[in-house]
Structure formats: C-alpha cells, structure tokens
C-alpha cells in the first residue's frame, strides 16, 4: 500500500492583487484565496499514484481556520484524510518556523502510518520562496528532489522511485530511495475532474485540527514569530526612475519618430554591436 503525504497551502490570488492609486496601500478586500496552484498539481500526482498502487493520500496544511476550505478542496480532488495544524502562536512564521511545524507534524503522521512519499509544491505563489520544501527535508533528513516534473516509477517492493527533474539546463532522471520528498512543478500531473463521491464527501468533511495543545509537542521557541529569525524591518513603494522623452507618431509621423528614437539609442551607444561604433 502506498501512503502519500501532501503539504498544501492556501494563498491569495496574486494575479488579483492591486494597489490603491490614491493611498498607495494594498487592496486586500475582494482578493480571492486559492489553492496554491503547484500544490494542486502535487496533490493530483499523489492521487494518480494512489489509484495505480492502492493506498491513501493524507494532506496537511499549517494555517488559520480559513484553510479548512482548501483542505475540503483537497478531499474533493481525491485525498483521503486532511489535517490542519492551526494555532494563534504559529502566526508570523517565516520559512524556518513553517518548516519546523510541518516537519514535526509529518514526523508524527509518519509514526501513525509510515509515509512512502511526501509531495510539496515547488513554491507558494504568495512569496515564491521555494524554501519550505528543502527546509522540511533537511529537518527530517530525507532525500529530496526539487522541480520534479514526472514520476516514472514508484517501486514499493524495492523501496525506490525514479523521477524526472527539470533544471535551467536540462532534465535529470534520478533514482531515489523511499521515503522521499518531491517538490513539484505543474507538469507533474494534470488536475482531474472530481468523481462525484469525492465531491459529496468533501462537502461535509471536517479535517482534524491539531494545535499547540497536541498531539505534537511543539517547542514554543521554534514556532511563529519567536521561531522566525527574519523580521520585516520596513515596507516601501518601489522607486521610479526619471522618465525619458516621448515622441508622438501622430504629431511627427512614424518615419521621423523612429528616426529620432534610433538616433538616441545610437548616441547612447547601445546599437554599436549592430551598426558599428557610436557617432
């Protein structure tokens, strides 16, 4: 039996974030919360392999109670069990503190029911840090493959998996022992339509909620703000450079506008490779 564990996060849909032009403040109202897209694909891969090999998929998330929606969505997508690790004391966690809570939770879930493969998204789109996965693997001393794009094989008998990883330069085909952690890119699996029974089950599903009170014994000094070595020191709006000159084709004509623009580029020396030295 295959036991896959997937870490999922709810994120604000950053494509909808905007700044109030009057106040310069972030407009938070109406920004929808979504399932971190990479995590959805990671979950789809876990479910796909569960269907192939038989077994179960457990989903875990650290966050406020509003994350329950996301965990229900995970059930709808084919997860069997979901856990929410949630406590006020976890608030303000940076990646080090987040990886601590997730690692300790996964350690505990593994004691209940040994895990073969842990799936993470390659990054969460709210911060794009891609640090939590490698952090958790380091804490659990597990082998890890980041930027996984394809699972070729999982062999539960021989306790190994063969996975493809995409880097900037090439694709690596890597063999890893189980248990192993993958951080997944979108290509890892297509998100399937939810079968009706999963959909129905998800509507009423309540994830198990774990807190500072247990069952995991968290070290108070390693969670939330206290466990976070980094702090936001200040926030500001980006500086704007001095704008350059505008030439209107409607006033001077296309030919003259282009001539003037090219002349400026030439005198700045940026066309020298194309046209020879600046004049």
């Amino acid at each position, binding site marked *: 039996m295959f036991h896959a564990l997937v870490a999922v996060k709810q994120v604000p849909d950053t494509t909808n974030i905007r700044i109030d032009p009057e106040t310069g403040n972030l407009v938070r109202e109406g920004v929808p919360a979504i399932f971190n897209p990479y995590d959805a694909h990671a979950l789809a891969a876990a479910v796909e392999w569960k269907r192939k090999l038989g077994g179960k998929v457990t989903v875990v998330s650290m966050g406020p109670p509003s994350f329950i929606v996301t965990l229900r969505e995970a059930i709808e997508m084919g997860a069997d069990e979901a856990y929410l690790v949630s406590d006020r004391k976890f608030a303000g966690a940076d990646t*080090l503190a987040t990886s601590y809570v997730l690692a300790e939770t996964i350690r505990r879930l593994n004691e209940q029911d040994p895990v073969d493969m842990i799936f993470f998204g390659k990054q969460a789109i709210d911060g794009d840090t891609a640090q939590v996965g490698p952090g958790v693997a380091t804490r659990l001393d597990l082998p890890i493959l980041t930027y996984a794009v394809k699972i070729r094989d999982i062999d539960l008998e021989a306790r190994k998996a063969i996975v493809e990883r995409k880097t900037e330069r090439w694709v690596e085909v890597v063999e890893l022992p189980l248990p192993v952690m993958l951080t997944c890119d979108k290509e890892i699996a297509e998100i399937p339509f939810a079968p009706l029974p999963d959909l129905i089950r998800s509507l009423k599903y309540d994830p198990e909620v774990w807190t500072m009170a247990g069952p995991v014994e968290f070290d108070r000094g390693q969670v939330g703000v206290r466990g976070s*070595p980094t702090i936001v020191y200040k926030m500001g709006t980006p500086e704007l450079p001095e704008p350059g000159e505008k030439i209107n084709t409607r006033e001077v004509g296309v030919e003259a*506008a*282009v001539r003037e*623009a090219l002349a400026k580029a030439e005198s700045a020396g940026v066309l020298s490779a194309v046209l020879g030295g600046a004049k």
Partner: protein
Amino acid sequence: MSTRRFWVFIEQEEGHIHPVSWELLGVANKLAADVRDEATAEGDEVVVEGVLLGEGVESLAQEAIYHGANRIYLLDGPVFKYYRTRPYSKSIAKLVKKYEPEVFLIGATTLGRDLAGAIATASHTGLTADCTQLEMGEVKGAKHKLLLATRPAFGGNIMATIVCRKHRPQMASVRPRVFPMPERNPAAQGDIIREPVMVTEDDAMATILEIIRNEGENVNLEYADIIVSGGRGMGSPDGFALIKELADELGGVVGASRPCVDAGWIGYEHQVGQSGKTVRPKLYIAAGISGALQHKVGMQGSDFIIAINNDPNAPIFEVADVGIIGDLYEVIPEMLKQIRAKKEAQA
C-alpha cells in the same frame, strides 16, 4: 581581532560558472565596503570568500579570485560532479559551522534555491529570497550593521526590507542580472583552501541515471544584450513574427509579457518580469506592453529602453528612455526599414 566573512556560493555545472556567481562577488565586495570603517575601528578584518564545489574545478577557483574573492574554499571530488541536495547542503553547512560567515549570498537559480533552503535550515538561520537590493545598514539595537535585504512583496507592489537580527549567517538569494557584473581583474590575488570531502556517495541518496539535454535552442534571455519584447497589445500570437524579425535584425532575442505566455502565444522561457526572468540588456524594446509593475521589475535595469505603445499614458513610458506613441504595426516595420538602410549604408 576577528574576521568578518562575506560569503558567496560559486555555482558551476560541468565546469561552466553561472555568471550570477560573479555578480554576487561584486555585491559582496560592496557589502564588505559598507562595514569596513566599523570593522577597522574595532580592529576586525573584512573578507569576501567564495565556496566552490565540483569535480576538477580548481581553475574556476582562480577565476573567482579574479572576480573579487579574497579566498576560496574548495570542495573537490566525484560526489560533487553533479548537483545533488544532500552532499552539497551537508558539506556547506559544515563549512558554515567551521568558519561562521556573517553573510552568505546564493544565486536564486534552480540549483541555488534548492541549496539555500537546505543550508539555512541546517544552519538554523534566516534566508530572504529573491532580493533586489542589499546593503549593510545600522538597525536600532544592533551593535553591528546588519544586512538589509530588500525584495518585492505582494506581486511587486511593495518593497519589503527584511533583517535577520540574531542568527548567522544572514542569508539571501539573489536572481541573476539584478546586480551588475564586476570587472575581471587578472592581477587579483587570493588563497585557495582545499577542504576535506566528508560526504560519500551513500550519503547522496539520489543517483542521476540520465541527463536529457534540450535539443532546441536555449533562450538565453538573462544574458542577452538586446531584447525585443511583445505584449498583449500585439493582439494575436502572429505579432511575434514581427517581433522576431526585429530581434533577428538586431542580433537580439525575443521577450514577452506574462499574458502572452499564459495565452500560449510563446514559451515561458521568454517571459520577462517578476515571475519570469530579470534581464539587463543594453537595449530593451517593449512593444504593446503596458508596463505593469510585475513586468517593470524584470526589465528596468536595462541600459536603454525604447517603448512602443499607442496609449500616451501607458506606465511603460515611465521607465523608457525613449517612448514612441504609436501603433506597433506601423512603428516596427519602419524601424526594420531604417535599421536595414543604416546597415546597408555601412556595408
């Protein structure tokens, strides 16, 4: 007297240095300069050091010295031939423990991101991802200057400055092309310290069975000197034929804004911006791109920007050196014509 160490991870694959390593040596020298007075007053020494892993890569260590490292720690052995998280991160975490650097900079490449998260966790310290500004500055309550690591947050709408008060090293990852390339100085001198390799093949827990190389052309957007980018204003994917024609004529490469990539008009490797590539060409031509913040953060470091947009109020004009208000389907053909004429006049 103590030594304040500013570290840079020197990234290489198959003997090819990732140029971000040199860019980081450049910033590390700037950070070291920020604390030099403070250090001199206290009788401390400030050094910029590189960490280099690989197999048979000693000559690269020398290159790193030419690009600004005072000293290189070299871990050379077959277990480091290809990057794998465990041998690299465990070895470097040991070095961090041994030498206690104050600051550690790593390129935000696929390799560097993987490594940085693992080292920071093993060293139990803070890591700020994708920084766009770095300086050593005074922070209330801190005895020494701290690393002020600034990065875009909330889709680039806000710049957040992050500090790591107590834990060391203060780690940051930086994307390629955010900082300029330093001069290579072949007269520079430095030490190469060979460190013992303490990990074995068994510790790797990952065997690379095969490497599949891209057959097609690799788009090297980040290091291109000339980029011609198209945006949604082209109205259809066919616009890229014109963009490509201009890029080819200029010996440049094609860039794109995100909506074009999302719509499948062109591949992701062409995307410029916050969730694409940061570029720093000599010439950047933006056609039919409105100039959203997320696009601008990826290209405003270009030496010279020409924007073509039919909306006189498009924000792209705020960062352009020259803005042409007009229809790109009239302007680009005219540009092609004039450039060809100039080339001919020269031949």
